[in-house]
């Protein structure tokens, strides 16, 4: 008797599995980790879609490009503007189908393919107990005494490092090389990625670290620590956005569309501030959690679209390398 029951159970299980469609989401590793927004997102979306959302993590774009049109991905979340051009040129993506006009971004967004779900601005974070008089502008930072030590990320291996490079380009244009030369003596070191740099800062090795305007929110809300602040520069701050995209060849087009709508839904957007420590791409300012009101925000936002950035990138990396190799 045992076997028929077991067999029947197995049969029902497979039938149930067959009825539950799977939505495969490619995401950066941090996103789907226990401490990223992924698990909660999965829970929220599965509650309404009647589907099984499965994350696949790793190097997002390299993996997509390696897989080409044989990719298993239905949707992708966590792309940045510095890879969207390559992603777009691959022809793998379909229009997102959401209303760009309703977004609450500080820049006007017209991209029909890549949909923003949160943003922040690049900023130098300091500790008020260690830096009494933070630089009040980018010029101030360039002219600060050389014993003010900052740590930045490498634009060749880190997206935030790349954003800093474009930030300098947006502020100083043709004079970026000189700006880097002025900044060079204050750069304690250049790290491979954001985590190493931020670790150096919290360990007290560096006085300031290149991060995001929203970084202090983690310390305020999760740790009750208000000593970490972003230095706000009147020259403007570079806009850093994370995006989602729908794969054109998906075998779950309805679910993928539902997912794109969910990404900018109020439910998910309300979770972004404390779920991903960023600013939601589509949420009224009064719906932000309390701690976010304490954040210092820039008045001016700088941004290069992907074509401008692509045109600048190689020369800017070389300019950066040359100035810092002196």
């Amino acid at each position, binding site marked *: 008797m045992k076997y028929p029951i077991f067999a029947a159970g197995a049969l029902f299980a497979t039938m149930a599995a067959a009825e539950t469609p799977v939505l495969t989401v490619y995401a950066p590793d941090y996103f789907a*980790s226990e401490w*990223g927004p992924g698990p909660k997102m999965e829970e929220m979306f599965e509650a309404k879609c009647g589907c099984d959302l499965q994350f696949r993590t790793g190097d997002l*774009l390299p*993996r997509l490009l390696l897989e080409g049109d044989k990719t298993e991905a239905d949707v992708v979340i966590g792309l940045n503007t510095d890879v969207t051009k390559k992603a777009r040129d691959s022809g793998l993506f379909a229009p997102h189908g959401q209303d760009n006009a309703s977004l609450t971004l500080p820049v006007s967004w017209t991209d029909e393919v890549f949909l923003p779900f949160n943003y922040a601005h690049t900023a130098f974070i300091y500790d008020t107990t260690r830096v009494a008089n933070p630089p009040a502008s980018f010029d101030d930072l360039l002219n600060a005494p050389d014993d003010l030590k900052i740590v930045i990320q490498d634009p060749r291996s880190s997206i935030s490092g790349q954003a800093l490079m474009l930030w300098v380009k947006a502020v100083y244009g043709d004079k970026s090389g000189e700006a880097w030369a002025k900044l060079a003596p204050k750069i304690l070191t250049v790290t491979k990625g954001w*985590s*190493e740099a*931020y670790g150096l800062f919290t360990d007290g090795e560096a006085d300031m670290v290149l991060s995001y305007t929203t970084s202090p929110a983690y310390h305020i809300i999760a740790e009750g620590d208000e000593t970490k602040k972003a230095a706000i520069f009147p020259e403007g701050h570079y806009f850093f956005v994370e995006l989602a995209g729908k794969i054109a060849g998906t075998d779950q087009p309805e679910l993928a569309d539902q997912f794109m709508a969910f990404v900018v839904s109020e439910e998910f957007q309300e979770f972004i501030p404390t779920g991903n420590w960023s600013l939601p791409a589509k949420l009224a300012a009064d719906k932000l959690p309390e701690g976010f009101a304490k954040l210092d925000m820039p008045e001016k936002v700088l941004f290069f679209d992907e074509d401008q950035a692509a045109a600048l990138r190689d020369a800017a990396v070389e300019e950066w390398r040359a100035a810092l*190799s002196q």
Partner: protein
Amino acid sequence: MARRAQPISAGVWVGVAAAALILMLTLGTLGAVFTRAGTLSTLGPADWAAIRFTLLQATLSAALSVALAIPVARALARRQFVGRGLLITLLGAPFILPVIVAILGLLAVFGRRGLLNIALSWAGIEPVSIYGLQGVLLAHVFFNLPLATRLILQGWLSIPSERFRLAASLGFRAADINRALELPMLRRVLPGAFVVIFVICMTSFAVALTLGGGPRSTTVELAIYQAFRFDFNLGHAALLSVIQFGLSALAAVLAAWIAVPAFGDAGLDRPLLRWDARRLRLRLLDGAWIVAVALFLLLPLAMVVGQGALALFSLPEAVFWAAGRSVLTAIGSALLMLALAFPLAYAATRAGRGFEVIGTLSIAASPLVIGTGLFILLRPVTNPVALALPVTALVNAVMSLPFAMRALVPALREVEATYGQLADSLALHGMARLRLLLLPRMRRPIGFAAGLAAALSMGDLGVIALFADPARATLPLQLYRLMGSYRLDQAAGAALLLLGLSLALFWLFDRGGRVNADA
């Protein structure tokens, strides 16, 4: 005669199979990346700067590590003291540490607010900066001094204690022993140790980046990362990888040319007693070296322990699951490594040094290229993500092979040279020879190699970053995830857990190889 030849060739054939697998994983993956890329690219000025810096820092790092390791290994070889075994195990710790953990420990000692600069400011001396070439060298010596010391110490321990008895009965002083016994041994061991460390430093990239102070300190491995990750220029990544292979191969050829072949040193494994080193001056000298190196290597580790101790008890459950997966992967990796290394070492002693070279190839390989190549190769056949952990174990096994070969091949050669004829005359072949002669005589290097493989696998982020499945993270990956989500305190706790587990694994294997042995 036919009966005698057969088991030998069977062993060699297993070696050939192992060699084929390694060639597939190193050159095969590179080939896959090349094929996928389709085109070749040229080298720009930034690439040349990276090549120059890579060669410079690798040469200096290897030279410094080996030069410092000689007095340390000599001190450890001729001194017996309480806790010597534990100290040797602990001194090996930096080599098996995940880079990021080690960097945080080093900075706690040598950083801007580290112990050294605090001490200097008390003494009224200008602070020193770790960032720059000096930082890269410091970190590389920190990582590789233990390996150099172990390799050289093995050389010392390979001199039979009967030689020292004979020397003592001839009234040799330390200088005579040095000339007659130690220098010939060093000539044999040093080139290999230098090359191993040179090549390890060639492929290092996280270290150079964090402590290098800026783009001056760009290595070829970073250029590969950039080509792969940001430019998605597979051709360029593959080209740079070929250059990395070429430079490493050149270093290896030079070393083989310098090194003289070993002679059999037969002995009866009596305990080692060093009559020549009993003078007070030599005792103080050895003591000073041991204390200095222990401080240099253990202080940063102590800082890692100090920073992580509090958070260790508040770690999320997921970290412990990841630790379990990492331990299993590490043990699997150590066993796989032995399954590959033993036949290869056997084939190397029977059928030529080509097998030794193949076993050493992976040291020059870029993990990124291996990962990408495997992804390209596996995808048409199966889902690489489902294989994340087995693939990680296999790649880690292959990555630790060069170190295993360094330990196993000379040992095997020596056993065969010394006892081979006796075994042949007793018709001891095949499994019986393995069980009765090779395994017991080679227990020490086998334990060492397996421990190293397990610990290296434990700390390696490696290929899993490309294949990762969110539900199957390893401990290093969880560590990075904690760091990436602002949880730096918990990351420090995870780092301590990683340090403890890596050391424990190494100790277990290494100890297993040294049961009943004096050293």
